[in-house]
């Protein structure tokens, strides 16, 4: 995996112009997608899904991700959605956290101690996300959009997306608000436009080659806010779920083809 990082650096230094670099990056993206280690994360996720844990010493196999207890096929493609038992809109990670607390009897504190991993080891949440998302491959992304709470989440997410604050006056739209823009060499999808959001929604969570890590949407939002110079969004909060709902509902309709492989 380290070798790949060197390869990308070499590519950048070899290319003399922006256009050349872009073509090289496209070639590179194709290549890394073919040799992605995503499957390894899926396998570890399956092990964790079936592993008895917590004070109740039970696995997550009875966790209801919206399609009934233990049903994984197509469950990720229907998230985020409103859950009656929790009386709130939940994305995958928020729902997993709910199951860890209610089924396994784990405390919120313990279950959220290490939600984002590093290049040594992914987090439990990341492994599980890989496994569960993979079970939606080929299923059209269709988050909940009919319940009043789902509509509320969408409206809040939309508002947050355009909300400028912090010492650098940034909102999500500062980077993802205009067609054809990039930061350094990184193209920036205009995430409030369905055609740009669809391929994003269809491929997260994803393995990131540049840091050899598997990353989830909760992490993606978290790290965007870090770069926006803002305080940290609370994991699985209403705000992060609302943003995830706004992005997923905007980019709905494409068959899921993740977990993806990113630069």
């Amino acid at each position, binding site marked *: 995996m380290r070798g790949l990082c060197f390869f990308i650096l070499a590519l950048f230094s070899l290319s003399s112009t*922006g256009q050349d670099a872009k073509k090289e990056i496209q070639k590179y993206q194709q290549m890394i997608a073919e040799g992605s280690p995503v499957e390894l994360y899926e396998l570890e996720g399956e092990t964790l899904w079936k592993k008895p844990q917590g004070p109740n010493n039970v696995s997550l196999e009875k966790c209801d991700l919206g399609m009934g207890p233990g049903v994984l096929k197509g469950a990720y493609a229907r998230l985020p959605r409103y859950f009656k038992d929790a009386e709130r809109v939940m994305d995958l990670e928020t729902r997993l956290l709910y199951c860890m607390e209610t089924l396994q009897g784990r405390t919120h504190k313990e279950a959220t101690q290490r939600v984002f991993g590093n290049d040594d080891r992914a987090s439990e949440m990341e492994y599980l996300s890989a496994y569960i998302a993979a079970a939606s491959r080929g299923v059209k992304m269709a988050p909940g959009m009919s319940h009043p709470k789902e509509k509320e989440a969408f409206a809040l997410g939309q508002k*947050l997306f355009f909300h400028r604050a912090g010492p650098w006056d940034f909102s999500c739209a500062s980077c993802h608000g205009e067609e054809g823009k990039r930061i350094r060499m990184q193209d920036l999808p205009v995430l409030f436009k369905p055609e740009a959001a669809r391929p994003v929604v269809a491929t997260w969570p994803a393995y990131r080659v540049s840091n050899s890590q598997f990353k989830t949407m909760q992490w993606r939002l978290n790290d965007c806010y*870090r770069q926006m110079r*803002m305080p940290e969004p609370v994991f699985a909060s*209403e705000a992060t779920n609302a943003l995830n709902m706004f992005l997923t509902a905007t980019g709905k309709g494409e068959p899921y083809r993740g977990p993806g492989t990113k630069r």
Partner: protein
Amino acid sequence: MKRLAFLLAVPLTSLAQGDVDKVLKRDFQPRGQATMDRIVPDAVQRVCNETSDKPPAELAKTLEADQLKTIAFPSGTLIGNWQRGERIAQGGRGLTWSDKPGAPNDGSCYNCHQLSPRESSFGTIGPSLYRFGAARGNGPEIQKYVYGKIYNAKAYNLCSQMPRLGYSGTLTEEQIKDLVGLLLDPASPVNQ
């Protein structure tokens, strides 16, 4: 201020700004140097949020004049060292919760702008600044404009996407002068 209050009373969606502020205060937490006071939008941000970055011209003019007053222009030449300026333009450190508080910050300029032709990895959110000085000279007026624009971009365009790098405490007076040098010094690679 009366007109401003009227403007703010008309929300863009059914969701009131007050509700969003409440969510932000509840669902964000301080981390490192990223303290919670950053969540609350200031007067400029509030107007830009409420008008989707298209403030009424008269209001924009008033608030831009207020922002201009925040800039303390140093006396003498504003053209610093372009070599140091290039390093500041390249770097992206500063103000995030993972940055060490008190360590020198950078300008993140290349993230959004083309500058020196030697750097092919540049962003395009802002305009290209290649040959900025070559096209405009380096007299006192343009020096003052560039210094001011970097110090507080909102003094010139209220809802500009560019951070207020001096006003926010990101860059020091010395660092901004070095960036002015990078843009205006005839010897700078930007002007080659």
